[in-house]
C-alpha cells in the first residue's frame, strides 16, 4: 500500500535494499501477520461458528452476519445441540470465544472464579469476568491499527499539504505556516487529548485520532517543506515549467513523489507513536468505551486485578502485543529510512 506513493523508479531499488535488512524484513512479516489477524479477527476468535448446519438449518459466516436466530447461541451451546447422526456439522473459529463473551460452557465446571490461566480452552487465559484474552487481543488489534493509520494518515495529509504550499510558494504563506507549525509543536499531544476527552464526553476513538492528527503533523510539514525547498531549485522543476506545466502539476507530479520517501519513514515511526498513545489513553480509561477491547484497555484490566498476583497472562500478552507492534513499526521505519538513503549503493 505504501509503495504506491513512492516513485516508480525507486520502488525496485528501495525494496532490494530493504530486503537486505533481515530484522526489518522480519518486522514487516510480523506486521503482515498482525494485519491478517486484525482483518480475520472474527475467524480467529468468535462466539459464533464460521459455518454450521444445526437442526437442518445451514448458516454461512454467522460470525460475521450474526443472524437473529442464533442470537442466544454460542459455539458452546451449538456444540451441545450438534447432532452428527443427522448430518449436522460446524466449522469453529480458532478460539471459540468472542471478545465480550463472559460465560462459557465450561466455566460452570471450573473450580475457581476467573481469571483463569492459559489452558486448552483459553490459550492465553481469561480476564476477571472470564473473557478470553486471545479474543480480546485480536479484536483489540483493530482499535490499535485503526488509530495508528487514521491518525497518521490525517497528519501526513495535513503536513504534506502545508509543507508543499509553504515550501513552494514561500513568502507570507511560508511565514504563516512556519509560525503555526512552531506553535503546534508546543502542544503536548497527550495532555491535549486528555483535556479534549474530558470536554467532549464521547468515548470513541474519533477524538483521539483527530487530536493526534491535528497536533502531530508538524514533523511531516517541516520535512516536506525542506524537501520542496531543495527540489524546487533543481533544474527539472524549472524544465517542467519550461514545457508549460502548471503549479499544480509541478507540485503533484514533480515534488510530491520526490518528497514522499522521508514522509513514509516519518509516517511509519508515527504509527508506532500513535499506537502507544492510544494504548496509554485506554490504559488510563480515556480510550475505547469500557466493554470494547483494546490493548491499553486490557493492560488497565490487568492493573486493576493486580490483586491476583498470579495472573501474569493479563499483563504479559497485551504488553507483548504493544511492544512487538511498536518495535516492528519502528524497525520497518528504520529499514525504510536506510533503504531510501541515497548515499547507499543500489
Amino acid at each position, binding site marked *: 500500500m505504501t509503495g504506491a506513493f513512492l516513485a*516508480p523508479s525507486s520502488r525496485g531499488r528501495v525494496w532490494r535494499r530493504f530486503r537486505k535488512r533481515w530484522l526489518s524484513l522480519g518486522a514487516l512479516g510480523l506486521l503482515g501477520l498482525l494485519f491478517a489477524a486484525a482483518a480475520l479477527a472474527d475467524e480467529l476468535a468468535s462466539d459464533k461458528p464460521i459455518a454450521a448446519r444445526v437442526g437442518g438449518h445451514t448458516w454461512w459466516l454467522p460470525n460475521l452476519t450474526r443472524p437473529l436466530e442464533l442470537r442466544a447461541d454460542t459455539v458452546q451451546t451449538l456444540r451441545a445441540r450438534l447432532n452428527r447422526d443427522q448430518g449436522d456439522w460446524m466449522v469453529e473459529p480458532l478460539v471459540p470465544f468472542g471478545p465480550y463473551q463472559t460465560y462459557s460452557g465450561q466455566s460452570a465446571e471450573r473450580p475457581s472464579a476467573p481469571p483463569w490461566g492459559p489452558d486448552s480452552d483459553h490459550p492465553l487465559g481469561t480476564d476477571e469476568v472470564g473473557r478470553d484474552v486471545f479474543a480480546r487481543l485480536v479484536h483489540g488489534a483493530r482499535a490499535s491499527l485503526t488509530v495508528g493509520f487514521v491518525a497518521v494518515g490525517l497528519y501526513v495529509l495535513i503536513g504534506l499539504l502545508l509543507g508543499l504550499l509553504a515550501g513552494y510558494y514561500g513568502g507570507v504563506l511560508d511565514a504563516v505556516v512556519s509560525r503555526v507549525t512552531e506553535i503546534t509543536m508546543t502542544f503536548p499531544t497527550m495532555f491535549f487529548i486528555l483535556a479534549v476527552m474530558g470536554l467532549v464526553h464521547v468515548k470513541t476513538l474519533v477524538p483521539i485520532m483527530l487530536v493526534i492528527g491535528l497536533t502531530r503533523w508538524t514533523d511531516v510539514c517541516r520535512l516536506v517543506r525542506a524537501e520542496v525547498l531543495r527540489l524546487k531549485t533543481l533544474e527539472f522543476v524549472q524544465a517542467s515549467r519550461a*514545457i508549460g506545466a502548471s503549479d499544480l502539476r509541478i507540485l503533484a507530479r514533480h515534488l510530491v513523489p520526490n518528497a514522499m520517501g522521508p514522509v513514509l519513514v516519518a509516517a511509519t515511526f508515527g504509527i508506532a507513536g500513535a499506537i502507544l498513545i492510544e494504548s496509554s489513553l485506554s490504559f488510563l480509561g480515556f480510550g475505547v468505551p469500557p466493554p470494547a477491547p483494546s490493548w491499553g484497555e486490557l493492560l488497565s484490566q490487568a492493573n486493576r486485578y493486580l490483586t491476583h498476583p498470579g495472573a501474569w497472562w493479563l499483563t504479559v500478552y497485551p504488553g507483548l502485543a504493544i511492544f512487538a507492534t511498536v518495535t516492528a513499526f519502528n524497525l520497518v521505519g528504520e529499514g525504510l529510512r536506510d533503504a531510501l538513503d541515497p548515499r547507499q549503493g543500489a
Partner: protein
Amino acid sequence: MSPAEPLLRIQGLCTRFETDEGEVPAVDGATFDVWAGRTTGLVGESGCGKSLTALSVMRLVPEPGRICAGKLLWHGEDLLAKSAEEMRKLRGDRIAMVFQEPMTSLNPVFTIGDQISEVLRYHRDAGRGDARRRAVDLLAQVGVPDAGRRVDDFPHQLSGGQRQRVMLAMALACDPELLIADEPTTALDATVQVQILELLARLQRERQLGVLLITHDLGVVAESCDEVVVMYAGRVVEVGSAAELFSTPAHPYTAALLRSVPGRERGRGPLEVIPGAVPNLSRLPPGCRFRARCDRAISVCETVDPPLEPKRAGHLAACHAPVIPP
C-alpha cells in the same frame, strides 16, 4: 527568402534582481531579433546575463528577479502583456527550452517516455497510448537507438548525451517555432558535443526552427550560428552576422574574445586572456562597462555609456571607439 518580421524581437529588455546589496541589473536594455529558420548565438562571459535573457523570454525569471522594462515581441505581440495562463500555453508548445544540465533536467522518478508524453498531454490533449507512440517516434528522431525500449528507461539509465537528446525530444514534441538552448553541450564531453550540435542543426533545418543558442564557446558559434549577439555585463555590445562578426569584429570586447580562442586561423599567434574581471553589477561605474578592460578606451568612454548603433550594414555595436577593420 527571410521573412519580413522576426519570430522574436527583444526590445530594451531589463531584468533586475532586488537584493540586500541593492539592485542588480542583470540584463540591461538587451535588444536583438531571432528569426525563423535561423540560429542566433548568444555569447559572453559567465554571469553576463545570457541565461537570464533566455529565462526572461520564457517569463521564468527566478525570484527575486523581475522584468522591469522592455518588450518581447513574439510575432509582433508582446509576451510581457500576456496572462500567466496564455504564457503557460506557449511554453513547451510554441517556445521550447533546453537546459545546460542534462543530468538534473529530467525528473529522476519518471521514465523518459512519461516525461516526453507529459508535454503532449499538456498541449495536445494526447491520450496515453498516442503520447507514448509519439514519444518513441521523437526519441528515434533525436537519434536515441532502440527507442521502443529506451522509452521505458529512467533518466539514471541514460548517458549525459542521451539525456540531452531526450531533452531535445521533449522540446520538439509540439513542433515549436522557437527553441532556446541554454548551453546545451557545456556539460557533455567533446565528441558528444559535436553530435548534439549536429543533431540540433539537422532538426533546425528540417523544421525551420528559430534557434537561440546560448554558449560561451565561440567555436560552437562559428560552426552553427547565422547571427551572433555578444553580451557584456548585462548589455548587448555587438550584433551581426556570424561571418561579419568573426572576420571584422567592431567591439573591442568581441575582438578580445576572438583572440582568446585557441585554434582556428588565428591559432599561431599567442593566446590572449582578457585582463581584469567583469564589474560588479550592483556597483557599475558610469560610462562604458568594458572601459576598465579596454585597450581602446578614450575619454568619452568614462562618462557616456555607448548606445548600440549600426557601425556597418547589418552590424551593430555599442562602442565609442570601434575596432577599425584592417
